[in-house]
């Protein structure tokens, strides 16, 4: 008699598998404590319409992590990044973040989510107590609102309120110089568009009280055609136009407004223009559009910044984005903090990060600071300039003044009941 072996999983291997499974479920910390490498988890947006930004975040993180690892790692431990796609959905971002910590054994999180997802990841960080650095969310309330404050989370990102103050004061100075009193706005109809436009006009009017908004347009997000908006603005005849359209929406808008010669008839302030993703796509970029800096190689005008932009381009064959410099800065902060603490313990790192100032190519004076009282990035290069149709695209950027930013930010926080 012969016994035929049934195909499939044998009893022995099933037992072995169950045993291994039980081990890792029962004692994840054993595996963690023994690991020589430190795993850092990162949920970010790698598919969908903003995938380009998520990819540029991953690229920047890897560029810096490679440098840290080559120099010996974090307190002697090599970094292993675990980067997952959240598809830009908050609930998915939260799930991925939780899984990265609980299942993959990541000790820290870098949160590469847009503002919608960042609040969800923030709650996961609050719940699990892991060190978390937000690297993409510009929503001011994430750190300004004391209800959001937790000791283990930091924001290494430019902030909406800073941009509004600098944009408003820049636009007001141009307004006064050129006598631009009648303004129109045209921004995408969702939270970011409404908030950013509201804050910009608030500070514009504060610095230039005689400014009047005579026309508002709120096209849908991702609207394919803006012709009716363009002609409506032409009819209203403002002297200046503000827009916080971004990405493909902004380039569509420019292409369509171009053939109505709109850019010759008014000063245009488009806060998101000076980003390589938009600058390199628009074929007929008009001269003289005012824009805030996102990431641009020429500002700050230091060899360090230019070298960083070139190194990124050499490696990935495209220019970095706004999200890139923020993610790179986060890794620089973590590396410096680990060096100072001579440890990779999340609590110790968080203590060191509070108020830490590091050398950084994206600082307005060559350094940036993680402000201690609200765990947010300050001192980064922020300014406005005008475009030209070819590289360097924005030849001169007028830097914002951090003293003014701090004063008005404190006032804004008070008005919101945050302090």
């Amino acid at each position, binding site marked *: 008699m012969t016994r035929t072996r049934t195909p499939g999983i044998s009893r022995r291997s099933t037992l072995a598998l169950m045993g291994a499974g039980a081990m890792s479920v029962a004692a994840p910390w054993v595996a963690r404590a023994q690991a020589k490498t430190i795993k850092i988890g990162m949920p970010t947006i790698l*598919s969908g*319409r903003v*995938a*380009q930004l998520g990819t540029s975040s991953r690229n920047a993180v890897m560029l810096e992590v490679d440098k840290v690892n080559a120099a010996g790692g974090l307190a002697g431990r090599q970094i292993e990044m675990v980067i997952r796609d959240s598809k830009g959905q908050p609930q998915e971002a939260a799930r991925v973040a939780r899984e990265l910590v609980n299942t993959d054994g990541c000790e820290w999180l870098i949160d590469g989510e847009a503002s919608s997802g960042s609040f969800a990841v923030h709650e996961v960080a609050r719940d699990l107590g892991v060190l978390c650095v937000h690297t993409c969310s510009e929503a001011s309330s994430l750190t300004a609102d004391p209800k959001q404050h937790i000791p283990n989370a930091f924001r290494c990102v430019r902030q909406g309120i800073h941009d509004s103050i600098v944009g408003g004061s820049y636009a007001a100075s141009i307004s006064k110089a*050129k*006598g*631009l*009193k*009648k303004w129109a706005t045209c921004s995408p109809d969702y939270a970011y568009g409404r908030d950013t436009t509201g804050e910009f006009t608030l500070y514009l009017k504060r610095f230039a009280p005689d400014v*009047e908004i*005579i*026309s*508002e*347009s*709120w096209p*849908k997000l*991702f*609207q*394919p*055609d803006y*012709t*009716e*908006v*363009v*002609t*409506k603005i*032409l*009819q*209203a*005849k403002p*002297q200046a136009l503000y827009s916080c359209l971004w*990405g*493909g*929406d902004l*380039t*569509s808008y420019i*292409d*369509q407004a*171009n*053939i*109505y*010669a709109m*850019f*010759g*008839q*008014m*000063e245009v302030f488009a806060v998101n223009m000076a980003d390589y*993703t938009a600058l390199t*796509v*628009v*074929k*007929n970029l008009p001269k*003289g559009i005012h824009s805030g800096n996102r990431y641009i190689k020429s500002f700050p005008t230091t060899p360090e910044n230019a070298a960083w932009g070139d190194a990124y381009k050499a490696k990935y064959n495209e220019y970095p984005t706004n999200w890139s410099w923020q993610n790179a800065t986060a890794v620089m902060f973590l590396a410096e903090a680990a060096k100072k603490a001579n440890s990779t313990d999340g609590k110790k790192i968080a203590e060191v990060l509070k108020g830490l100032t590091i050398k950084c190519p994206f600082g307005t004076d060559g350094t940036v600071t993680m402000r201690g009282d609200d765990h947010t990035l300050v001192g980064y290069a922020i300014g406005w300039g005008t475009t030209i149709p070819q590289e360097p695209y924005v030849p001169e950027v007028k830097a914002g003044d951090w003293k003014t930013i701090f004063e008005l930010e404190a006032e804004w926080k008070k008005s919101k009941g945050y302090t």
Partner: protein
Amino acid sequence: MEEEQGLHLITHTAETADRLRRFRLVSAPYQARCNESAPVDLDALAGCLSSSACLVTQTTSGLIIGMLLFLVAVGLTLIFGVLKIVNFSHGAFYMFGAYFAMTAYQLTGSFALAMLAGAAGTAILGLIFERVFMSRVYGADVLMQLLVCYAFVLIFDDVVRLIWGPEFRSMGMPAAFQVMPLFIAGGVVPPYYLLLIGVALLAAIVLGIGLSRSRIGKVIRAAAHNPGMVSALGINTGLIYGGVFALGGMLAGLAGALAAPVRSLTPGMGFSVLIESFIVTVIGGMGSIVGALVGALLLGLIRSFGSLGFPLFTEGLMYLFMVIVLVSKPTGLFGKEAA
């Protein structure tokens, strides 16, 4: 005068500056009334209707939105009329048309070749798609057809992502059209949009005459009416079905190609156009070419004038109009009763 200061950036001729100034003056009465933005701004609308400059500008704006929509919607309605299929993947042909045109333009630098590539490329794609896939689900239930189409919406989007990348692209305006807009009765009309309206209008006329007068047109109409009889008379209905699908794809592709210089190209760009095309066919009547033309133009004009009178409700206005048509005439304005 404040009027002068807005002009300082213009690097064109003094004549242009003079025209722009006239444009400002002609529509001054309207302007005085639109200095506030409210949810319903009938004053702004009335002011616009009484100013020739505003009227011309907004009408051309409505026409270009409408004519591009017509090119997409007419293919949709034609395919439904003859093949009895609701082609949910029609937006993909608009997308492919735009991408084909951009690639051809980058390779050759010729605008005419770009348009040709957009139209011809999508026609071939439509033919293959119909023969290989859609022809297998004729007569199947609607859900089956819908699922096949929807699967291809996703597949086509991913194909574009694989070939051209996930980020948005721009074709750029050909140098020949980078000129100052025309000024007609004080209104602003960009020359490129004149071309666009002209091409779409030509397509509408050729299509209308071709279907009603030519022999092929008669065969197509006969095939729509009674495919069994047409087939019995020795005419290859498969060829006709394939041809109609290719024609529909070509028109959508042409719309995409014409839109490519002014709209950004992304995977999935066909979706919003498809939705609006459905509104057009519902308003105009499924299967009616005249209905598609009228529906598309109405929608374009609703958008352009609605954005003045109802700045916060422009989108809703389109749907409201659709509801009114559906309630008062469920088959659409030009739809046949119980088709």
